């Protein structure tokens, strides 16, 4: 998805922003989209078939930075030279700002599925 229109859609989405660091979180969210984290992990860090869930409650900052910059797992490393720690920290702050999702019981569609498969 193109970054500009993608960002526009995101602006319309309910943002879960910590009030004390709104600007940083907004910047972190923009970076998260710009450098392509969303491609595998989804725009809310929810994860999917291509990448695991990142939020809420991402891994601790030190471990996060170490992993992103140096991983040899399936995820390609985002090295310091292309994603400086300062920017990565903003992304981490954005992930930290994402609140927990609603419970299954709070979503009627999913609550109904607890009892029987659908359709």
């Amino acid at each position, binding site marked *: 998805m193109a970054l500009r229109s993608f960002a526009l859609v995101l602006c319309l989405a309910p943002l879960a922003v910590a009030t004390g660091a709104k600007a940083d979180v907004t910047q972190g969210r923009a970076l998260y989209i710009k450098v392509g984290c969303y491609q595998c992990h989804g725009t809310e860090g929810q994860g999917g078939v291509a990448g695991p869930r990142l939020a809420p409650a991402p891994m601790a900052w030190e471990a996060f930075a170490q992993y992103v910059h140096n*991983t040899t797992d399936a995820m390609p490393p985002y090295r310091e030279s292309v994603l400086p720690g300062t920017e990565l920290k903003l992304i981490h702050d954005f992930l930290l700002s994402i609140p927990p999702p609603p419970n299954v019981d709070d979503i009627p569609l999913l609550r109904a599925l607890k009892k029987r498969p659908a359709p």
Partner: protein
Amino acid sequence: MAGIKAKASVGRRGFLGAVATAGAATTLPATGAEPLPKRAAALPTHQQLAAETQPPKAMAAGAQQCGADFMVDVMRSVNIDYVASNPGSSFRALQESVINYAGNTRPEFLTCLHEESSVALAHGYAKVSGKPIAIFAHSTVGLQHASMALYNAWCDRAPVIAVLGNITDGAKRRPGVEWLHTAQDPAAIVRDFVKWDDQPGSLQHFAESFVRAYKLSLSPPMAPVVIVADGDLQEEPIHDRASLSIPKYVATAPPQGDAGAVREAARLLAAAERPVIVADRCARTHEGMGLLVALAESLNAPVIDQANRMNFPNTHPLSQNARARRLIEEADVILALEVNDVWGLINEYIDNEERTTFSKIKPETKVISITAMETYLKSNYQDFQRFAAVDVSIAGDAQATLPALTEAVKRALTARGKSRAAARLEEMRKAHEATRQRALTDATYAWDASPISTARLAAELGDVLKGEDWALVSPDNFISGWARRLWAFDKPYQYIGTAGGQGVGYGIAAAVGAALAHKPHGRLAVNIQTDGDLMYAPGAIWTAMHHKIPLLSVMHNNRAYHQETMHIQRMANRRDRGIDRAHIGTIIDHPAIDYAMLAKSMGMWAEGPITDPKDLGPALKRALAVVKSGGAALLDVVTQPR
């Protein structure tokens, strides 16, 4: 075959030549003449219309059967119900015989707007109905368009009969187009990925080769086949119909695995502490699912359905797809049923700067493979995957081998083995239920996000399908498998897997073909349609409308070739060259394509783009109402990447 005859007899080429000449004379301005008036097109004269639409008197006078009529008889003899085709002059006689001689029924001519769609439609149809239909195409330009889709069908072990128009005799070809539409060896470009082809030299030869082709296409491993229908053979009258015969078609009994090897496999499975069954293209017919259930229940062994067919009901407690990795790692015996990539099943491959591989299984783990592909490989195209050394290798059709294997397992189970199997069931029940509850929890993440999460898409769609006799006619791997995680797939026709060769352009046309096969059963065909795939051959939308094929298509519109975006990102990362330009060449945006407008332009009910998840459920209900009334609908939904 007749040659180019005297003026008294209006031969095929003479007729066309006259039409072409007449057209040229009336539509092209002579040198120095005034330019044509500015209008869309010069209207044809009465004589031109007659020449274009009516047979010349010499042809109309003959009620005699022509070769193409006999070819249609041959197709009818094996119950070819449809011909999917974009029209072409090299098989004009065949097309005319279908629509007039056969009355456009059995087979019925399905108008496709691209040969790739013709084959994909046939591919989808075959996977639901279990039998092939034919496609007609030019031997050159048509087959080149069709070739990728044939490759998909080949990789997906799907039967398709491709009939190619070709004008073999150079002395009889019309100058120009018939030379362009003829090849010495038409099937050469697809021979690496069709099972068999022939270029019959007589009508009797055609009958025998067509029945042989049909038989081969349906014999496991199933595959596409090609028959070349010579133009003159199609068009010339039949002088002695009584001398022609159509061979009786008798289905080939699929090959079963060797009895001794099956016993050895059963012995290993019965003695296993942690057996695992993996099925890929195992369920070849609707009976296949029940046969696999019987085997799994004889052992209470977990089943991992790689989902290129509807192998196993995901509602069954032994369905353990989500735990595939762990089960494979812990297994002591693995049974692979028509698994094309056994190496990939038991090994890990990491696509990072250092391409690393390692075994996922324990050194002592025994691997059993049953596949009809064991004795049937071709060399050029590499769809057979990396070689895997297994412990018991059984050449045979897995579905056909299942009854004997199940009986052998039951015989081989000792009291201790039965006790182990009984104990496994409870473990599987708990794991199955935990997986299901975890899927519901996972679906809550990004529930209200826009673009809409793929879990929300599947949940909302599943909700409107409640109580319907539905079938998903597209893969769901591009939406992170959410349909199979949330919906109950418990009927053998509810899933048909993927394109096979990962060739883009399969989706909508295969969905239309599958929907056509579901139509007589009154099933609701549902297609989760990716955006990039749709734009390869959107004309299949028109085919659905033209032939009144009910189909509900819901777009997974992430506005990108998203898989490729991730690959470019990977390369950029690997080279440390910046990571914010992976969208170049991979997005489908600026402008965003209006898929609803696209569908509407071809007469389909459509809405969208839907970006607010709250709008999705009501829109799906409206779309469903259209499909339930016999129509087709497309809902454009802007979604998360995966």
